[in-house]
């Protein structure tokens, strides 16, 4: 059984730090942007950071269940994006804007 080079040369911690960086970039994006589409894209970025973390743990520990989880995360992300984009199109039709700052009716 041949071990992939990356597992021999790259410590698992680097993948964890990389995924943490990507996740935090996604969080900052959700916080600073007002375009609903970009907010949705930053959520995708966070999901992908988690996917990378699952995959790296799965590869380093030789456990296929992590990769199955990534598969299910992708399934849920695809469903979420289709519904989310439908909601954004509906918002644009009613408000002529995709600005999340307008949607403050439920704000306390």
């Amino acid at each position: 059984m041949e071990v992939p080079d990356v597992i021999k040369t790259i410590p698992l911690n680097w993948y964890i730090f990389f995924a943490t960086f990507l996740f935090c970039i996604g969080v900052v994006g959700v916080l600073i942007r007002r375009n609903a589409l970009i907010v949705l894209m930053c959520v995708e970025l966070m999901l992908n950071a988690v996917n990378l973390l699952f995959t790296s743990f799965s590869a380093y520990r030789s456990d296929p269940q992590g990769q199955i989880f990534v598969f299910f995360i992708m399934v849920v992300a695809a469903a979420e994006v289709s519904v989310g984009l439908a909601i954004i199109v509906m918002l644009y039709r009613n408000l002529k804007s995709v600005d999340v700052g307008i949607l403050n009716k439920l704000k306390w």
Partner: protein
Amino acid sequence: MIQNVFWFLTFLAIISACMVVFSRNPIHSVLYLIITFFALSGHYLLLNAQFLAVVNIIVYAGAIMVLFLFVIMFLNLRRETEVQKPIAVKFAAVISGLILLAVLLGALLKADIQPGSEVDSQIGLVENLGKVLFSDFLLPFELASVLFLVAMVGAIMLGKRDPGEPTI
């Protein structure tokens, strides 16, 4: 060699992720996000998870990003009309993101993370993943199809125009 590839893909992913957040034009954001997804697919290939690399390109870079591009062009958002948040709010958001990063990194640096003792490089191949998916995860797999059906019906319900509603 493999380290150079790792660092190249890592920096490509992080820089293009930053560009997703900071570029003004939504179309540029989508294109940078596609670059990020390709870099992540490269990482999956490095980790010998070929199935996920291919699925990542097909589902994310292919389907989801095309959907985003379609909606952006459908809504005609090319113009850079986004109202910016106040600079203080942005500053606070970046600071809180950095604090989150510091907390996570601090917790992870203390953590005792050990890779597995024996490594089997073949788990990411389609054959092995398929066996696990259709034996241990058969019920979640079938539920995922129901989820897709619900999402499809929901998207059509939301996107359908009521009679008398103005067109875009």
